[in-house]
């Protein structure tokens, strides 16, 4: 395990909704199935969900082009309405974690920590941290190398690279 300090990647967003509702949206399948996907036109289906401390969930996201993605989530901390901590993995339909061995040194465990803060009765600030858990030195290096929000070099060029790869 690396002794270097990990600086998590971070997204901060504000939502025009009460804190309890934003928290519930992350922890109740009746909400989750309606939004937990990266673009309009996806479908999200929960096969199992036990969203409590130590619980797990398994869901499938179907992309607009029909591509299916299974995600297995281990919940570490579910503290309504302020904090949610989970590890999420690509899996198969049985919830078996798919190994990322084809990407050398990619951190095995990526930890998401979400903090929900009340800004006003109808405004909630969400801070989302994303970091490798107990990474080896190699894994930490891999994580650092892939960040665009920190370090040198990947800025506008990163977008260019993305457009180029998308265009092929």
């Amino acid at each position: 395990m690396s002794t270097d300090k990990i600086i998590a990647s971070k997204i901060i967003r504000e939502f025009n909704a009460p804190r309890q509702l934003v928290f519930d949206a992350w922890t109740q399948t009746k909400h989750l199935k309606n939004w937990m996907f990266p673009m309009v036109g996806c479908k999200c289906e929960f096969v199992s969900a036990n969203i409590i401390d130590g619980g797990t969930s398994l869901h499938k996201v179907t992309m607009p082009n029909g591509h299916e993605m299974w995600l297995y989530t281990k919940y570490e901390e579910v503290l309504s309405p302020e904090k949610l901590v989970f590890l999420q993995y690509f899996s198969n339909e049985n919830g078996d974690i798919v190994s990322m061995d084809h990407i050398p040194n990619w951190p095995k465990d990526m930890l998401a920590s979400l903090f929900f803060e009340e800004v006003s009765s109808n405004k909630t600030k969400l801070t989302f941290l994303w970091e490798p858990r107990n990474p080896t030195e190699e894994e930490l290096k891999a994580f650092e190398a892939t960040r665009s929000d920190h370090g040198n070099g990947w800025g506008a060029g990163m977008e260019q690279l993305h457009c180029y790869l998308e265009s092929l």
Partner: protein
Amino acid sequence: MSRLKTTHDVFSAIGEPKRRLLIEQLVIKEMTVNELVDIFDWSQPTVSKHLGVLKKVKIVSERKEGRFRYYRIQPDELRPIQEWMHQFEKYWGSTMDQLDNYLNQIQVKGIDSEH
């Protein structure tokens, strides 16, 4: 910081700022060492050394034509890495756009009239 060498250390290869600049340049078009030397104003051994590392992890390939060697990006090698790089900001950023839309919707319409 000392660390173990691995034979296929792509992330360490792209973690070096100079190599990122080389990748970004080669994304535009294939180039010779001399062209890269001119663009970056680095010494020829510096450019060659970094290209050598990128070649070893197969992100860059080399083609000989006459006296010149041309270097180009290997998109198939870079693609999975690039997808992972985008995972957090793009995937979760976009997913939270969906959450934003959804929260606005249900507060206007109510969850039961959602479908």
